[in-house]
């Protein structure tokens, strides 16, 4: 029998265009303190710590080891790091808890995009033989996908603009979001994508605490139980993939049990408006599902943290009793190359 594991606490920074007055650990530390405070746990109570970040973003070598200063890693803690979005760090922590070695895990991630040019930085994750030497930036690759969607009739530019407007309108109630309310859709960045179709570039951090079984019930009034979580990846070569679909998302969702029962809420990690179109299709989300009530990555996209934030936002809605069954999605790589899906549930609420 597998263990029941839940998200019991979530915290995030206010995401901002720049945080140049703060080092990475200075940006991260308040979030770590906040998430621990929510459970009353101390670092020494945590069984496993896992983080996600990329040194390329800020051009700061071994920044993840310096970030550990914010945890208080003495006496030596059980710790791991992934050079990926924190959602994948959460996946590792979930597997660690499944082993029964420990009952609690701290997961955090952060990204400081402001020191560099994130469009160029992300070219360095591409195939180094055939693609990276051309320096195709992240907006260009997303625009190729958007054009394919438009040409095949799945969307059009006004529909994409509506995704942007809805996201930033919803972000009005999210005090952490970087872009909130009415935001002009702007000029083309790489046609057909306009400024408004692209995520804001910014800095931020997030943290989550996972706990197993009764420990979760002690730490949280209404734990967000992870009913399933899975991640899948597609070929790296863009020309091999069907860009208007996301078979990896669909398969991850299937393995996570997302299609067994409808969800009421979905937090999708779609940095570009066009990618929400792909994800809605792959996940078969109907109009009755509340998509990205937080505003999603179009409202705040701290790279390496934005995926973990989707899980945190979905869990927080369950904690607050605003959702009973939510889907959280995280992505990595160009044009939704790799995708993670988690299904979270709260225990049934009894009549008052």
């Amino acid at each position, binding site marked *: 029998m597998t263990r029941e594991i839940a998200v019991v606490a979530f915290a995030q920074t206010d995401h901002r265009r720049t945080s140049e007055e703060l080092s990475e650990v200075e940006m991260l530390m308040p979030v770590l303190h906040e998430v621990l405070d929510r459970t009353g746990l101390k670092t020494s109570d945590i069984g496993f710590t896992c983080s996600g970040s990329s040194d390329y973003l800020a051009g700061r070598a071994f920044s993840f080891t310096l970030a550990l200063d914010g945890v208080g890693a003495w006496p030596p803690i059980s710790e791991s790091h992934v050079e990926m979005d924190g959602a994948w760090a959460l996946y590792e922590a979930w597997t660690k808890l499944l082993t029964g070695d420990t009952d609690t895990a701290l997961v955090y991630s952060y990204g400081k995009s402001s020191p560099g040019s994130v469009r160029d930085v992300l070219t360095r994750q591409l195939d180094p033989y055939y693609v990276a*030497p051309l320096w195709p930036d992240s907006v260009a690759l997303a625009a190729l996908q958007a054009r394919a969607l438009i040409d095949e009739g799945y969307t059009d530019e006004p529909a994409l603009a509506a995704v942007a407007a809805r996201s930033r309108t919803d972000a009005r109630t999210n005090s952490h979001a970087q872009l909130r309310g009415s935001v002009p859709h702007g000029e083309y960045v790489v046609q057909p994508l306009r400024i408004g179709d692209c995520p804001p570039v910014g800095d931020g951090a997030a943290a989550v605490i996972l706990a197993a079984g009764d420990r979760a019930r002690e730490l949280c009034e209404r734990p967000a139980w992870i009913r399933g979580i899975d991640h899948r990846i597609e070929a790296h*070569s863009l020309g091999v993939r069907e860009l208007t679909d996301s078979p990896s998302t669909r398969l991850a969702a299937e393995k996570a049990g997302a299609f067994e029962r409808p969800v009421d809420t979905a937090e999708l990690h779609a940095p570009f408006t066009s990618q929400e179109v792909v994800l809605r299709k792959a996940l078969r989300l109907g109009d009755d599902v509340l998509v990205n009530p937080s505003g999603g990555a179009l409202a705040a996209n701290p790279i390496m943290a934005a995926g973990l934030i989707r899980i945190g936002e979905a869990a927080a809605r369950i904690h607050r009793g605003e959702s009973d069954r939510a889907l959280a999605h995280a992505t990595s790589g160009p044009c939704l190359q790799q995708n993670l899906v988690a299904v979270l549930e709260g225990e049934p609420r009894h009549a008052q």
Partner: protein
Amino acid sequence: MTTEVLKAPLVVEFPFTRSLGPVQSAFLTGLREQVVLGVRTADGRTLVPPVEYDPVTADEIRDLVEVAPTGTVTTWAWNHAPRRGQPLDTPFAWVLVRLDGADTALLHALDAPGPDAVHTGMRVRIRWAAERSGAITDIACFERYDGDGDGDGDGDGGHEVADHDGQFESMVTGIVAQARLDYSYSPGRAQTAYINALAERRIVGERCPSCRKVYVPPRGACPTCGVGTAEQVQVGPGGTVTTYCIVNIKARNLDIEVPYVYAHIALDGADLALHGRIGGIPYDQVRMGLRVEPVWTEGGRYPDHYRPTGEPDADYETYKELL
């Protein structure tokens, strides 16, 4: 107290030398010779650009075929503001092109007068670079092509692929990929304060509110307690060599004669040793416990090195916890 945060340009730049597998070697050498090769999968598809392993089955694939330098745009995006390193420095379209004879598409640039001149399904051909070395950039870009691939008028090319042994004279076996990223580096609050104080010839650490340790240089957090440090504490200038090494290899672009001594120095009042070079004493006379002080050069923003103070050596018991 607010002080202006320090910032400085930081360029991270290095050439990656990468070796090529047999399929990549044949493809990139082929580009040098204006020949485009694809690779056949077990289920009969032709992949261009070719890969060493089947993206579906992971089987090793080695059967090469020659495809046409002409093809069809499968999707595109108009880039009105080219960025450094991109194939063209005038506005162009990013395109995925399925070359005639291929089943998959290649990413590259299309030279076109404007977005109105580009559409999915348009016919294009390779414009070869004048100088070719065996790299994806041997394709300068694509350009509009009005011809039909095989002249049958169906517009899809219909190119018949021919087997190819992938052998050329002087095969390219590796590429050197230049990578450069530009940053505006900021060290954050704690280190900004430290660096600013250094310029005033003061060494200022920060004390942990929990364990009371003084960290020099401060990084804004106590790594033991995981809490922020804020209380500033001036330390030194005197300090004790806790341990050291003798450097015998001259570093490139470093104007210091070898051998020299690099030491861990526990400044008076600090709970963590920092490191610095020891000067003003023959390298073979440096020892644990040696008392030293920082030496600033004229206009220097940080100590150039540390030199002996002439005090008696510190007792081992006074610094053993700082080793």
